[in-house]
């Protein structure tokens, strides 16, 4: 006597196998969904903005007249902002990572700082904006200048840079530093001459990615009160400024008033995305070119 009814199994097998193939394609479709939206977004932005991109747009000053408006001021603002963000985050980020990975004793203080950093990474960017408004703009009385915006964004991306630098330092194999100690090098000499050079590509890759986050960030800057129409170009870190995302924001908000503002916003988005794309390409290049495998 048979315990298993072959007919029954045959019948169920059919639906089971069908569901198996069906879901394979459903899963594939969901994966493609995000990419399709991405393609629509990019196509939409390109078709709206590309005809507005020309030399005058890139080098012109802001204007209420869409035909004459340019984004040079916003580009310069982004550059000056980065001139504040890059040194501040690199020094603090790498310093903190070296301390946590190489100097701090494993214990309460270390794990407290570590937990604190991962909590900071989850704080909404707009809250950093309020911190910047309260501390840098108002309490230190800087006003809404490049320095205030740069420090705010630096604090925002600091957790990302710290974590990236920590991972890069951790990836440096132990035997390198042991060989250095074996030759009589002190701890700082080992850190400076052996560990940091080996960890640098990883740190740079992570920092560039964090930086591209700062370049695209808008929310904290809206809180600082960046002016909507700033005609003079910023000439240093103590000047008032605007950046590309803020320009996109104001033009998008005003697009119901004048349809051409939407095209200006789209053109600015193209410039911003190109900038981010170049940065990311550089980051990948550094990772592939300089990362040694031990």
């Amino acid at each position, binding site marked *: 006597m048979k315990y298993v009814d072959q007919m029954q199994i045959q019948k169920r097998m059919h639906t089971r196998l069908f569901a198996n193939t069906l879901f394979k394609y459903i*899963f594939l479709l969901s994966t493609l969904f*995000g990419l399709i939206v991405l393609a629509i977004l990019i196509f939409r932005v390109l078709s709206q903005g590309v005809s507005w991109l020309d030399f005058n747009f890139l080098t012109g000053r802001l204007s209420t007249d869409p035909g004459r408006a340019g984004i040079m001021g916003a580009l310069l603002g982004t550059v000056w902002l980065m001139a504040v963000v890059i040194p501040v985050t690199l020094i*603090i980020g790498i310093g903190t990572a070296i301390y946590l990975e190489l*100097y701090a004793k494993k214990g309460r203080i270390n794990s407290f700082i570590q937990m604190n950093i991962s909590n900071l990474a989850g704080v909404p960017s707009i*809250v950093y904006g309020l911190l910047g408004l309260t501390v840098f703009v108002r309490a230190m009385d800087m006003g809404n200048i490049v320095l205030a915006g740069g420090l705010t964004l630096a604090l925002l991306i600091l957790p990302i840079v710290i974590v990236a630098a920590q991972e890069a330092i951790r990836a440096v194999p132990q035997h390198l530093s042991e060989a250095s100690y074996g030759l009589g090098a002190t701890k700082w000499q080992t*850190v400076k001459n052996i560990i940091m050079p080996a960890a640098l590509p990883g740190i740079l890759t992570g920092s560039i990615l964090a930086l*591209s986050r700062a370049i695209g960030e808008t*929310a904290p800057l809206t809180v600082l009160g960046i002016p909507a129409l700033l005609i003079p170009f910023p000439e240093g870190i103590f000047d008032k400024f605007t950046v590309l*995302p803020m320009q996109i924001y104001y033009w998008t908000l005003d697009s119901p008033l004048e349809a051409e503002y939407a095209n200006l916003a789209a053109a600015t988005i193209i410039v911003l995305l190109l900038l981010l794309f170049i940065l990311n390409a550089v980051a990948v290049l550094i990772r592939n070119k300089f990362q040694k495998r031990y």
Partner: protein
Amino acid sequence: MTTKSESTKSNAINVRAAIEQKKQKKNLSYLIEKLIPTGLFLIATISILTTIGIIYTLLSETIEFFKQVPIMDFFTGTVLKPLSQNPEFGILPLINGTILSSFIAILVAGPIGIMTAVYLSEYASDKARRVLKPLLEILAGIPTIVYGFFAFTFVTPVLRYIIPDLEVTNILSPGLVMGVMIIPMIASLSEDALVSVPNSMREGALAMGATKLETTFRIVIPAAFSGIIASFVLAISRAIGETMIVTIASGSSKNFTFDVTQSMQTMTAYIVEVAGGEAAAGSTIYYSLYAVAMTLFVFTLLMNIFARFISRKFREEY
């Protein structure tokens, strides 16, 4: 002879000088060795100072706010009219807008994110994965202001063809776009959880005659469940803190409604509106900024802690 002795003499002096020099150098490097850890520690404390700064600024101004507006009115009030003659500060409309938009986002990103993760970890070939994953990462790298532009100038008009009642600014369109934004987050965190399920478990199920689909749903997903839930919680917390998409596409009406076709304001969008409006320092509306931000901060902090807690507590070790 004399020349030789002179030369040894000068040599001796040189050696002595060299020793002195070496000592000084040693002292200097000794000093550096001592100072570096302290310096680095001071740098490391900046991250703690940031936290203290955030909590202190939020808390002190929030306390000031609650001196002017009773705390119960704030948390139970359904009317938010900060600019009227008789201002009312109820936060519920903002919480309502925040939760609704995040809910729509997770409705989109949850299923799609998990299915993407399943496809990448269980079905895709190595080659396909190497192409698809970086492409999905692009979605996560696009600035939120670009998504805001996309929601306002493309998604809303398209939706208005389908739902004619939809207002020009509404909570539906930014919710949907926010969903697309957090897909990569859920997908990559869930994929990590799925990949860490040991192969022996899959092979066991397959050997028993289960199909790949059955193995995925009955074995792999349950085993990775804590990680998947953690990815959901983190994604929701990200959606709650998201600012630009809702600020642009959802307008600034402080409606207290569940009708997603209407304009609503989230906590983040309120902060942008009030802070950008040059609220005079010291006014009640200025302090309300901090009370709302404090609520937002506590919301997201709790969710992040919760996500860490479940992924640690319920992680199944194999």
